[in-house]
């Protein structure tokens, strides 16, 4: 028989399984070690070493690990189940890639191959799905696929109008809802989509006079943090999902946005204080000032917790 040279489709499920297995093994080993309570770990994109790539680091700014390395920008990491999914522009347009979250030079695998831009991925809490944006229709809309990029499908068909823009999906911890940004009302606001219900997304924060963007659903499901210009300078607010009460969380003099919850309830965000974007964190339950994550020089943005 001939020996065709086309590569067999990548053994992604195997890789995922392998990563999970490694993660589990490491976890078991760690549980037998002395409990040193290491700081929470985040992933983020960072303009360093001449390129924007995906990194991971402790909340104290230490133990930095570079997860990607290539020409073209890598952005918007999201982590679950031992893998980091992110958007890469190495192919000329935005495509989703995945890399093991522990680093160590693991393979970077491409998940999508389209002429559209796939951006702002967010892994579901169980790590089995990715919510992301695709501008296949002409403008960014909310899509979902399996964690390996298969079975892509639009989630908001018929919602808003043809040109309304969607952005920044964030999963509820229960995995059955997604909060996201839409301009369906003409101005960017927050909406909640219930998966599997076939219903229309419902407005969460859709104030005609102010913009609400970049939502992040808290791990306990009670709060949605978001960025808004409702108090003048864009800052971060939290919304109680049950009572719809909104509280201002940061009061920075310059823009603050891109909130991301950690498992312990702390909130990491990006601050433009001083001009260069820096990552900061604050405990939502304790009053006090924010702590800048000391990563050194470079523009760091789009943080996400490592769960």
């Amino acid at each position, binding site marked *: 028989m001939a020996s*065709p040279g*086309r590569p067999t489709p990548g053994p992604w499920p195997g890789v995922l399984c392998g990563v999970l297995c490694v993660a589990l093994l490491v976890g078991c080993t760690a549980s037998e070690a002395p409990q040193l309570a290491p700081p929470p770990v985040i992933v983020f994109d960072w303009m360093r070493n001449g390129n924007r790539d995906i990194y991971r680091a402790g909340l104290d700014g230490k133990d930095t690990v570079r997860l990607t390395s290539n020409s073209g920008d890598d952005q918007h990491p999201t982590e679950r189940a031992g893998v980091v999914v992110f958007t890469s522009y190495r192919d000329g347009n935005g495509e989703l890639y995945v890399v093991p979250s522990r680093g160590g030079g693991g393979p970077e695998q491409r998940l999508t191959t389209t002429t559209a831009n796939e951006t702002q991925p967010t892994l579901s809490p169980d790590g089995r799905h990715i919510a992301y944006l695709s501008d296949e229709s002409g403008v960014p809309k909310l899509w979902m696929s399996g964690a390996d990029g298969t079975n892509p499908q639009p989630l908001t068909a018929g919602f808003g109008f043809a040109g309304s823009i969607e952005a920044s999906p964030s999963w509820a911890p229960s995995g059955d809802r997604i909060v996201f940004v839409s301009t369906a009302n003409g101005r960017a606001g927050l909406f909640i989509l219930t998966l599997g219900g076939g219903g229309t997304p419902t407005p969460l924060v859709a104030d005609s006079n102010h913009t609400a963007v970049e939502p992040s659903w808290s791990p306990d499901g009670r709060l949605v943090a978001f960025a808004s210009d409702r108090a003048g300078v864009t800052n971060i607010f939290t919304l109680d999902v049950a009572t719809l009460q909104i509280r201002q969380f940061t009061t920075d003099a310059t823009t603050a946005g891109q909130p991301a919850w950690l498992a312990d309830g702390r909130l990491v965000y990006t601050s433009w204080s001083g001009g260069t974007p820096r990552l900061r964190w604050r405990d939502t339950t304790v009053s006090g000032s924010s702590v800048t994550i000391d990563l050194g020089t470079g523009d760091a943005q789009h943080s996400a917790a490592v769960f």
Partner: protein
Amino acid sequence: MLRTFRLIDTGVLSAVVLLVAACAESNAPTAPKNLFRSEMITCQASMSGGGTLTCGESQAQASAGMNFNLVLGGQGALVRLASSGTAYSAGIFSTNVTVENLIGQPMNTADGTTPDAGGIKVFFSSGPTVTGGTGTVSVANATGTGTFTGVNQPYFEYNTGALLASGSTSSSKLWQFTVPGTVTQFTFQVFVTTRLPDEVSPIVALGLSRSPSALTISPGGSGTTSVTLTRTHFTGAVTLSLGGAPSGVTGSFSPAAPTGNSSTLTVNVGLAVAPGTYPLTIDGTSTAGPRSTKLTLTVATAGSGNVTVDFSSCPVAERAVWVAAQDGANPWTRITGTADVYNFTIGSSGGGLAYVVVGASDAASITVQYRTKAEFTAGTLVQCPPPATGKTINGDVAGAGFTDRPTISLGGSEATVFTFLSSTFQLTDVPDGNQDLVAYRQSLANGPESAIIRRAQNIADNGTIATLDFNGVEAFAPATATITLGGLLGGEQVNQNMSYQVGANCTTAGLYFGATGGATFTASGIPSIQQVGTDFHALTVFASLGNDSRFITQYNHDLTARTLTLGGVIPTPTITTLATPPAYKRLQAAYTLPIDYEGSTSFGYNDGANKSVSISATFGYLGGTSTTLALADYSALSGWDNNWPPATSSTGQWTVSGSSVFPASACTEGATLKSATVNGLF
């Protein structure tokens, strides 16, 4: 490094998003009042060639790299952004951008008369994002940053304190990006946000564009351009007229007042019109407001001679905008044609033909062909075959798993089935009449392969092929044969491609493509018992190593063990940059072709962005294997644009190739074609 870049005249930037500043108070996601459809503008900037920018909508049909495409939905629908003077110098990428209001209402006003405080903001919803090279790109001179669909998004503001009337274009604003020398390409996506009057719903808009944007017509001749109207909630008539025409030049539109989305403009040039270039406009008047788009007319003297070059069957975008010829060693002469047909004279010494095809966003390709007189005058040189037309036929496969790659061919139309997505396929442009269907199941996991042949199929248009079951009774196991490859140097990557030629027209049907694993390999094909007399196997073997690649194709009725011997490696040519002026890159390649490639040779180079040059010569013209090919200096010829070739400062890739004489028919026992290529950087 500076190079002027035009977008307006080629109708480049366009498409929009409009986010009105004040909206309904209701929280319900109702259809917005006074709004909008929106398409994002995706721009790809390249540092090569002194800086280029191509912008277009992000659409499913758009090609990778986001090249601007004029006809994709929404282009120029509500707003047209146009840029000019694009340049990259000293770490700054700059371009001047205007905003044209295609909406039937004024922009930046709530009541139609009072300017709104917000202006017209063009904001970056994504990027600038580096897509080539390393480093970071930032907007250097944004008006400000704001929260639109995310935080800290840069924007440029237009018409501060002023309305932008329907059909009007804003003053130009310089956009600058800080781009380190390590970045070769970046991309960004922008939307527009502005205030529109509340009381008008829905938005009415009209875009006007044309293709091509330039016509070359000889005195006494005529030419046509297609006018496209992009309507948004507007169905009224648009009365079209030709503006700026000199005496003797007339234009007629069909229809003259379209209520649809297109019209055809025929421009007639009288015999007394002096040669030259005339800036014209296509003007539209309607209740949606005045619209105008530019059209460049070049009038020149028609030619005559023993050579006819015909571009008329090409898509409009692929027709030459400039043609020149060289008779023997005489100077090059500009040739003007009529209705995209050009005539000129070539004497016994042979000569050359040069032409330029331009694309969107200043893209240009220059083609130069050197041939003998006999080759030039053998018949009309039709540059584009008639467009394929034919039937659309659907089908599906069975007996193919995820690691199988079935390929189905019928009448020259071919479909590959990706079984992990779907088992169905569609063949398009299948000629009418009996055709032999060939289906081949390639295994990507070294599993068993299978083939099906159905003879004399003539399925109705939009008909369905009965399921092709690769495990069914009509399927058969392919034949195999051991192939030995000669001429390898060691270390090369070798691949094979097997096609099958069927029917009276010797139509190609693809079977498989794969690596060989070495100099001796197994090829698969159609067993003799399944063959008819007119069937032929076409086995192509590719060998590549570094910058060199070679291939050989041999046609045989039976698949039997044989030895194929590659031709020689083309030696690295001597690449020389010829003196300037002119103000563009003129490269010369000097090399000696291996004797295996005494058919034709070519030398090409490109700037890695959107400028390319291809120079070819037949062996009959050259008269020997010693070859020197260079881009001639056309700068003194009328109509030539120094921006067509790669810029003087550009860098990019060159390629030299050679080929043996093409077989008269692929269905000839033992017919062989050899070719080779070498490339490098300049």
